């Protein structure tokens, strides 16, 4: 274990410092602000690759640990560390930031460097969420991250942006304050804010249930799970392309990550008790939201609903192990559900990002997100049509793309628990194909729909570059997912061990 390394601190503070510098450079010096932002995004990505490289895959223990006393009167520490569950998301976050910076290069005309700066600072804060091992430190990053997103949607968003961004902020704020109360309660029980100490803390059943629901409120809003998902379509539709990408690729994952870091290990008995409830909510998200996606007229809304449906798979994978354990008395084979869910999270990061970028490419040209305003795009933008086809297929879970890996593993896990759960979950393969490909057909195929489409020009080099990178990632993970899953293995096994031990 390389415990003396400060890689994690660098991953948090380099983008934040970069953001401040970009802000200081401003727009007065032409493209200099953008270049600064890109440089810092690239540096962050390189450091995150070093993190991936130096990561020890054989242990479930926290690595790259940093521990400095921060607020001593409350025993709050600047305590960072990653395991196999959190590390991949830091890499994903740093990767997506580079994509977003390039994607916003010429598209954002108004206050460009402020836009870039907001994204960079958000990257640092999001890395902080994944790296924090102190509950208050986690909470600080978790809340602070809302500030740049609030500004991004509100300043660079669509016509109804103010409504969307305030709804986004208040929804997430409401959810997380209840988490704060449970953290304070845990502190008064244990006199520490260390998340890892909470994992070993004995808690009574009533308290566990209450804490579970407090956490659920915070994380379910973020995931988002049905029925607290309504902020997401609004936020996605109004957010600028980059905002949508980060929202879908990273922020949604934080809710799911919260389940793994907080809910499952801290209150395992409550999680086990309420597994049917959680699985039901997840299945409603998968099936019902899948149907909702089918009828959308707005492309961004459709992808937003598709995200909710895909995230339903993730929560399903997290709670399947409890059902398996209850039936067979062992966690044999349960890991595939959780690992599948994690793989789904990473893969969805790539695919949803790519889908929102595809819509962004169209939106930048015609300033419409309505499916009805397009048709026959393949005639004028053949290269774009090819990329979008690939990403649509991945979104539908085509084997060979990363979208297939996670869904398949979760369905396999579900089969061990209950046939009907697996059956309902598997409907997503049909529904997903239906809503994605139907949208694709209406937008891309057929005759050229109108004059606007006839005048479209194909992707430029910049757009081609980001699409190609994302396509490579989707394909790579689809064909050879082993490296990603290997990284998680030890930590997931340990987590499953932890949640079988009752804390009553």
């Amino acid at each position, binding site marked *: 274990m390389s415990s003396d390394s400060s890689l994690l601190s660098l991953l948090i503070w380099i983008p934040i410092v970069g953001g401040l510098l970009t802000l200081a450079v401003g727009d007065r010096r032409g493209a200099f602000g953008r270049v600064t932002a890109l440089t810092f995004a690239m540096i962050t990505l390189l450091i995150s690759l070093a993190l991936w490289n130096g990561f020890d895959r054989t242990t479930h223990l926290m690595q790259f640990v940093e521990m400095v006393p*921060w*607020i*001593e*009167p*409350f025993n709050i520490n600047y305590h960072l560390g990653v395991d196999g569950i959190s590390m991949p998301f830091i890499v994903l976050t740093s990767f997506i930031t580079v994509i977003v910076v390039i994607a916003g290069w010429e598209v954002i005309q108004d206050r460009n460097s*402020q836009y870039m700066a907001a994204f960079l600072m958000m990257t640092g804060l999001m890395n902080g969420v994944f790296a924090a091992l102190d509950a*208050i430190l986690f*909470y*600080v990053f978790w*809340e*602070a991250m*809302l*500030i740049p997103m*609030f*500004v991004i949607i*509100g*300043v660079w968003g669509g016509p109804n*942006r*103010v409504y969307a*961004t*305030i709804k986004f*902020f*208040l929804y997430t*704020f*409401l959810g997380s*304050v*209840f988490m*704060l*109360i449970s953290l*304070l*309660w845990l*502190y*008064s029980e244990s006199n520490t804010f260390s998340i890892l100490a909470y994992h070993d803390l004995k808690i009574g059943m009533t308290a566990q249930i209450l804490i579970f629901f407090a956490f659920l409120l915070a994380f379910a809003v973020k995931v988002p799970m049905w029925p607290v998902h309504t902020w997401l379509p609004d936020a996605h539709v109004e957010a600028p392309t980059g905002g949508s990408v980060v929202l879908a690729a990273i922020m949604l994952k934080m809710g799911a990550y919260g389940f793994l870091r907080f809910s499952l290990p801290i209150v395992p008995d409550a999680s086990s008790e309420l597994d049917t409830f959680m699985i039901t909510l997840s299945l409603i998200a998968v099936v019902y939201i899948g149907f909702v996606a089918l009828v959308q007229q707005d492309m961004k809304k459709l992808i937003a609903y598709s995200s909710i449906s895909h995230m339903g798979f993730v929560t399903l994978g997290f709670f399947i192990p409890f059902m398996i354990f209850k039936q067979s008395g062992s966690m044999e084979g349960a890991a595939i559900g959780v690992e599948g869910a994690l793989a789904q999270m990473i893969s969805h990061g790539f695919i949803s990002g790519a889908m929102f970028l595809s819509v962004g490419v169209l939106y930048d040209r015609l300033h419409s997100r309505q499916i009805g305003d397009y048709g026959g795009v393949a005639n004028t933008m053949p290269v774009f049509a090819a990329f979008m086809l690939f990403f649509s297929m991945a979104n539908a879970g085509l084997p060979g793309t990363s979208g297939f890996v996670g869904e398949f593993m979760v369905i396999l896990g579900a089969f061990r628990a209950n046939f009907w759960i697996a059956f309902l979950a598997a409907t997503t393969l049909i529904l997903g194909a239906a809503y994605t490909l139907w949208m694709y057909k209406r937008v891309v195929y057929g005759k050229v729909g109108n004059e606007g489409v006839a005048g479209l020009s194909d992707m430029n080099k910049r757009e081609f570059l980001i699409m190609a990178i994302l396509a490579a990632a989707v394909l790579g993970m689809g064909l050879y997912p082993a490296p990603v899953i290997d990284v998680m293995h030890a930590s997931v096994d340990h987590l499953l061990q932890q949640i079988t031990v009752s804390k009553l």
Partner: protein
Amino acid sequence: MKFDTSQLSAVAPEITLLTLACAVLLVDLFVKEESRIITGLLTMGSLLVTAVVVAAGMSGETQLLFDGSIVRDPMGDVLKIAVLLITTMVFLYSGDYQKDRELYRGEYFVLGLFGVLGMMILISAHSFLTLYLGLELMSLSMYVMVALQRDEARASEAAMKYFVLGALASGMLLYGISMLYGATGSLDIGEVAIAIQSQSSNADLNLVLVFGLVFVVSGTAFKLGAVPFHMWVPDVYQGAPTSVTTYIASAPKIAAFAMVMRLLVDGLNGMILDWQPMLIILALLSMALGNVIAIAQTNLKRMLAYSGISHIGFLLLGVLSGTEAGYESAMFYAITYALTSAGGFGMILLMSRKGFEAEEISDYKGLAKRHPWYALMMLILMFSMAGVPPTVGFYAKLAVLQQVVSVDLVWLAVAAVFFSVIGAFYYLRVIKTIYFDKAEGEGMSVENVDLNPVGITLSLNAMVVLALGLFPAQLMLICQSAIG
């Protein structure tokens, strides 16, 4: 009773400030209208000198002076330094605003200094009489400051309201004190505490004590501006010249916190089971009403007034937990709230011009385009008031809530965070106006706000709010050692 001159050194800060205030009053007589800045500088100098005197005399021990009528303890010293520094900041803020409105007069400064003197006496009070003396000195100075703008009907109305209601509150407080005196036979806070401990079994006396307590709590709630004794707050905040509002909304809150500590904790700690439920009701109502009504406001001063009411509710949460750590958290809350609140009104002072009061929220439309830096400062201040990390407001709320949870009042903590989410809405609306709305009308676009003393003060103020948010430990430790 013998007058002991050796004890005078312990009240050196008060003596210094009194002397300097008199000096400022005299100097101002000889200063010409155009060089009035001398008075302003002398005033700020006096405050800083007094702060140094307080700091130099800090001993870390509790001393009772003059037969127990005055106490000098670490809590008092820290609170006094906070009051002095924050008031200095308020004077820095108000300079230009006062000049534009021909309010830049000697009386303003001298009254401000006497008000601070009152706060210091209030903070150090260890007898009901001293406490009342300090309170009245503070309040009377503020009544007059509100009325300084004589030709403005709204200000005169506000001053009248403030005076009448304030006098009523003082009366209630005095009535309560007389009850306590009747039951315990003493005005000395320490002796009252002992008397209450020893006669807790006497039912008749207890009735008198509780009766007195109700009036004392009501009077205190009036001064704090807690619901249902809050009616004066919005009108006075809105009606007073903004510079005076800044003064009223910051340091006096710290003094009021000290008053709560002296009366309820030092004096009536034996009756905690009686006053705790009262404070729970006051806190709940303040948070609920303050946050909900603030949503309906279009005037920024009025909105901040209601927001202040809700913050008082939060502050009371720390006190009512009845633990030492709870008092520390309330003290931390009082100091940081005074700081943030001064910044919020400082923004109005910065943006106001001659003949233009930047007090409607809509006046701030599109500020981010015109003054991105000040927009960012306002963003920090607003998020701090909403309690969003990484600003100091978050830790203030965290500390207070932690205490509430630790004494098993989880439901109260849940209610508190629920109202703070409601509260977040109106702070967000201000940020929305600044960042998302397009500028319209002339308003602030007429003149460019470049670097000036007010702008620098505001930047410093907001930066301190942010810095304390990143590193709150030091101030928390100070509060800890001050109370513990």
